[in-house]
């Protein structure tokens, strides 16, 4: 019921391709993040799923049903807007109760519709049935807003507004929950606590969730799986660990965490290692590639830095010479920018109290475990 399948989705806006053959297969109960830089088509993808945009081509399925021709009001996708889109003339309670009012409206005959319309137009004109009141208060309690039920939404803080929007969407018991950069309007601290809140609610309810963000940390820390998008295309889909350890392009490697990207060519094989030579380095890798011109990806924490002459050469086979450009003390780690020929490598080393930090201009030797040299 709660799965989402998008096949070969293409969307054109007056000649501009916003989406190119986007395919996603999201399982029931999964927390799925769409990650990508601004303008890459995340919102457009989400709006196509919610039904606010008609795809130029491609199929969208919710559960087993194709929904391309189902209007947005009947798709049962709860959407939390980036701006929250709360109804400014209604208080918190009325906002949250909206979907139940609509359900009652659709289920009743012309005469019975009237009281619903009246209380939708003005709260003073009609009372809610008990069951609605109960449900609304329940969900408000759940998001810890029960004391704020009678407040106008403009009298709430950003985080509270966010939770109202979430509660409003959850109350309609959507098959899928769509969230478009829900945390981008919050300050740093609140963002962290809201991450946990959202994740907890998602786990509690087991609701399929698609979460749009351009913040990789957000995506990596919250999602079961992440789709990385760039200029209208899905570049890679995988769990956060897969994306981090096996990025399929330099773009993803850089987008998902920090990476050092080196260009080189494969010059031979030796004992199961590929030997790659580039400007200022020769590296062994346990990975293999079909082509000769390759990109090497090395994460900063997988490079170790030594003062020249202090390396035990037997164990560490990949050694490069460089010069320290900048060293930054970041608490538990020290980050170095190290010049190797034309490259500037980022190296993170664990800070050991009492051990000297390499200083700027100092010569340095770097070593990299061949297993950590990724060829793409």
């Amino acid at each position, binding site marked *: 019921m709660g799965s989402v399948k998008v096949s070969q989705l293409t969307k054109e806006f007056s000649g501009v391709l916003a989406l190119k053959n986007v395919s996603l297969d999201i399982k029931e109960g999964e927390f799925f993040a769409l990650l990508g830089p601004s303008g890459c088509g995340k919102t457009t993808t989400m709006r196509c799923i*919610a039904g*606010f945009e*008609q795809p130029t081509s491609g199929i969208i399925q919710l559960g087993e049903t194709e929904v391309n*021709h*189902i*209007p*947005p*009001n*009947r798709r*049962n*996708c*709860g*959407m939390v*807007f*980036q*701006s929250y*889109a*709360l*109804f*400014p*003339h209604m208080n918190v309670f009325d906002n949250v109760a*909206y*979907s139940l*009012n*609509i*359900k009652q*409206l*659709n289920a009743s005959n012309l005469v019975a519709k009237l009281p619903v*319309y009246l209380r*939708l*137009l*003005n709260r003073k004109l009609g009372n809610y049935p008990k069951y609605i009141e109960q449900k609304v208060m329940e969900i408000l309690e759940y998001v810890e807003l029960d004391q704020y039920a009678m407040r106008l939404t403009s009298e709430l803080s950003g985080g509270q507004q966010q939770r109202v929007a979430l509660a*409003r*969407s959850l109350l*309609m018991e959507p098959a899928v929950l769509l969230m478009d950069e829900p945390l981008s309007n919050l300050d740093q601290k609140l963002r962290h606590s809201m991450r946990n809140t959202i994740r907890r609610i998602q786990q509690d309810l087991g609701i399929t969730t698609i979460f749009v963000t351009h913040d990789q940390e957000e995506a990596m820390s919250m999602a079961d799986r992440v789709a990385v998008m760039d200029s209208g295309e899905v570049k890679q889909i995988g769990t956060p660990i897969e994306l981090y350890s096996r990025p399929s392009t330099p773009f993803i490697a850089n987008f998902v965490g920090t990476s050092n990207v080196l260009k080189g060519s494969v010059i031979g094989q030796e004992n199961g290692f590929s030997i790659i030579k580039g400007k200022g380095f020769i590296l062994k890798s346990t990975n293999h590639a079909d082509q000769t011109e390759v990109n090497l990806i090395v994460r900063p924490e997988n490079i170790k830095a030594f003062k020249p002459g202090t390396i035990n050469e037997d164990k560490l086979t990949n050694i490069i010479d460089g010069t320290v450009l900048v060293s930054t003390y970041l608490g538990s780690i020290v980050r170095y920018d190290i010049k190797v020929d034309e490259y500037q490598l980022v190296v993170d080393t664990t800070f050991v109290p009492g051990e000297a930090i390499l200083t700027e201009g100092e010569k340095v030797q770097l070593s990299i475990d061949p297993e950590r040299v990724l060829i793409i």
Partner: protein
Amino acid sequence: MKNWLSSFNGLSVVKILIYVFFGVFLLLPLISVFLVSFTSEPINLLGSIADPNILSSTIEKFKNVSFANYEKIFTNLTYLSAVKNSLGLAILVSLIVIVMCIPIAYGIARTKMPFKKTIAALCTIPLIVPTFISAYAIIIMFGRAGWVTYIYQSLGGEGMLLDPYSMAGIVLVQVFFFFPYALWPMVAAFKVSDISLEEASLNLGAKNWFTFIFVTFPLAIPGLISSALLIFTVSFSDFGTPIILAPKDLNLLVVEAYREIAGFFNWGGAAILTVIMVLVAAFFFWLQHLFTKGKNYGSVSGKPKQQKLNDTKWLTRTLSGYSLILVIVPLLAMLSIVLQSVATTWGSNPLPNGYTFAHYQTIFTSSLGNIQNSIILALGALVLSVVIATFVSYFVVRQNSSRLDFMTSIPLVVPGIAFGIALIQTFNTAPLHLTGTALLLIVAYTIRRLPYMVRSTMGTMRAIKQDIEEAAINLGATPLTAAITIIGPLMLPGIAAGSILVFITVIKETSISILLAPADWAPMSLAIFQNILRGEYYTAAAMSVVLVVIVLILQAVGNRISKNQL
């Protein structure tokens, strides 16, 4: 097909209904009247669709199509002089207004002249008074027994200072009651003129007056021209003044058209005059649009430039005195009406012979019906325009429906009398026999005033973010339900402001009321008009005062609402 069906919802039905409404009550009458200008006989287009007999007779009529009416414009002396006089009047009025307003506008925009607030307040009077009441006030002042005439004669003058029943009388009324339409755009024009250029001129040693004539004034010219064009259209379309003041031998298009239809049932004649009126008004409206396009006077308030206000004593005092003398004329006119309404009799004396509230008693006993009618009709038009304007602005803002936008601005260029004639011709037979019903009157008011209402609601609609509506739809509401439960309530302030404007203008409306109102639905404006024709001046005056008071109260409420919005 499937796609089409799914996008076909309640809202599309509403959109179609609105198109049908405009099609039937705006386009159809205008097209019909255009056709009649060739056939000289009523054309029943709706009937032709419904009934084959009518269709064949319509086809018969088309066989007699001729340009005879168009030739008449040049051969028939009545028509020819009507065209000439109407154009002449409008040109004269716009020139006088501009020249008269230049010192006032300059005074308000660029000097520290005393009594600025008072002057600005007095300038609103002309806008709340329907022109036929102003015209009537001028008779009280300048007529044979008027108090101005009395003063003039006691100062040694012969006869009348100015005969109100003449071209001069009409010009007088229109100048003094239309000038505020030009004044505020002119003030804006003087404010935008580039200050730095003026300072440069002064720095170079030029005198103040030299700078004004060669720098300030030329810079304001586009604004002045646009104001003049606006006054031209207003004067050209005005019916209230000429119908009261035009003497028998002065032909004017609006009066002539009214006579052709109300007096002689000359369909062809009325049609050709209507076509001319619409074309001329549309042309000048378009010209004015050209002049205002791209000039954003709004930027004045947005980013106030450092204005150096002229503080020369003799200049500001002269300007202030001049302005006060001019803007006090409409006030005197209104006071004259008030005096007349409480006068027992008022002969050739500066003041009435005695005072009484009997006339008010009369209208509140015998003419209460007219007041009631006015209010009911205005309410009807209000409800209809609220509903239509809300949806139209929705379609224009959310669905970029430029066709609807265009359609709702058509009534701006159609003079009231022309629209009335078109409606009478179109709806005087089956299948839609509406001439003489209150319904047609309400529809006519609605269409005439819709552009103002739409402007008001469109502004609020633009301020409502699209995602709020999408949120409602996302929560399960159909677009129609979302429009009713979310967009509607959010638009209330705009709707309220627009409604009051509609209500006021409908109560003031003259031409449509006189042409279309059936006897049992006569609104106040028609009653006043008939009273004046019958010579019942005192009750006419009392009724006018009631009308103006109603308008004033509503205006105050309206200002309150729009202030609360800020």
